[in-house]
């Protein structure tokens, strides 16, 4: 049990150290990451990376046999649109 307690503590320390976040089962910690206003940029960043990946994805990976379809039938366009909307929700919501 002692070894498990040590493991648990080390996990908690790692989490707090990496994220300046709360110890999973315990007390609060302060740090600039504490603020959800900082968090929203991490969330928006995830979608920004996703959009960038969708834009550079080779066309052959999209499985189109010959020519690209018109934009309104192109799933890449719709995927980027959905991801952009989601990114804006995280940035703009208070």
């Amino acid at each position, binding site marked *: 049990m002692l070894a498990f307690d040590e493991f648990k503590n080390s996990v908690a320390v790692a989490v707090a150290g990496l994220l300046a976040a709360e110890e999973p089962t315990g007390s609060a910690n302060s740090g600039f990451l504490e603020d959800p206003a900082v968090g929203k940029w991490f969330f928006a960043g*995830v979608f920004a990376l996703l959009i960038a990946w969708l834009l550079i994805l080779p066309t052959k990976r999209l499985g189109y046999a010959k020519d690209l379809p018109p934009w309104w039938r192109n799933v890449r366009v719709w995927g980027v649109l959905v991801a952009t909307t989601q990114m804006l929700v995280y940035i703009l919501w208070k």
Partner: protein
Amino acid sequence: MQQLVLHPVDITLVVVYLVAIAAMGLWLSRGVKSGKDLFLGGRSLPWWAVGTSLVVSDIGAKDMVGLADDGYRFGLVMTNFDLIGCVFPVLVAAFLFMPYFWLAGVYTIPEYLGRRYNSAVRTYFAVIWALFMIGTLATIFVSAATMFENLLGWNFWFSVIATAVVVGLYTTIGGLKAVVYTDFVSCIVLIVGTILICIVGLSEVGGWSGLQERIAAIEGTEHHFSILRPASDANYPWPAVLLGLGFVLGPAYWIGNQAIVQRTFGTRSQQEARASYVLCAAIKLVFPFLLVIPGMIGLALFSEQLPQAGSEEWVGGQVLPMVVQLLPKGVLGIILGAFLAGVMSNLDSYVNSASTLVVTDIYKPFIHRDASDHECLVVGRWLVVVFLTGGAGASYLVITRFSSVYEAFQTFLSFFQGSLLALLLAGMLSKRTTQWGGVAGMLTGVGAAAALHVAGYLFLWVAWWSFVVAISTTILVSLVTKPYDDDRLRGLVYSLSADEETT
């Protein structure tokens, strides 16, 4: 709680809806002659029907009841389960993972894992998924029965059995095609119903600003209108939401959940499968707000009648039945129809997928290897009955062990989603990942999840750290063991399938 006496208009709407759905399901069952028809809809399903089916396979009765409860307790942070927890992984699944599953021509995710790793991994995840599906069916039964009990005064167990019989009838006969097309209707009814709840509820509290004012006056609600909560929050700290939900639970659910992915296997082409995922993501941009806001309306109006969230007296499932009592005659019938839609679409999706999983990954490999297609069809239909019965029985555990059905669902998931995602990622992205790396990652991931649960960690952290343990172990063991050769892995790994992409 005061029970409702339904107006004849409401009753008529509910009966018409039930009869129409059952008739549609039975009509669609005409073409079901083989296991492929039952499990994959004959691979003839259109993207728009599959896209909406994906939405309501995820969102249903448990979400209407559970998210209203948790919207009451925690507010808008719960929308993350469908935003970062769905939109992000669904888009990744659509453009990265889905083509490989589709081209591999598999029926189930464990079948893919079996081809990529070995039969031990396949069987392990098949058994775990089957157990998880029984747990999920139980949460759906509890949601439905609680709603019927609170609203209509029906006996809890009568409600469970009645729901199981109605859904069992058309799912057993109609298979995936009936499930997907009835889900399309259910999705529309569900959206209309939840919009009506929000409109009526918000007008009752004085609009959005009125809702904000009323909730602000209640103690302990300072973060109810925030999508993200501080890192020190006890329940949903944003780093745990990002890492545990956004990077593990969400992707594992949308990439590795048989009940979800099976729908896309039933599309006509890889393009349609991808389009169905994107449609699902688009709908999910608005749906979570429609499910969480009713709970916040409940908080604004009924906080003095309901126990304080988190207190000993708190019992899940009470918020939505109180909110829908605000609705006028006729509208209530639509809401009950929407709720039934959610119950049926959730149940039919899970029982159909559970039956597919057991036939494909357990019955055929272990019980009757040479089973004919017709035999698989018959066994699949019997398994629908078995799973519905098992789910109904397991509802007892859910009502006695969990304060919220949504909590129960997420807790079940967090046990094995970390290791599942680790194996899918490592297996699909690197040909160097070995079968023994997969076995080690699977065992250590689930072991770590169990240990962290016992230690009392938040389920979001359990998911994240079990993923970290599983992927680390998979990589380390793979480095010291021998991988399969390229021919064995062609079509299963990202770097070995570029030539096969075009359909």
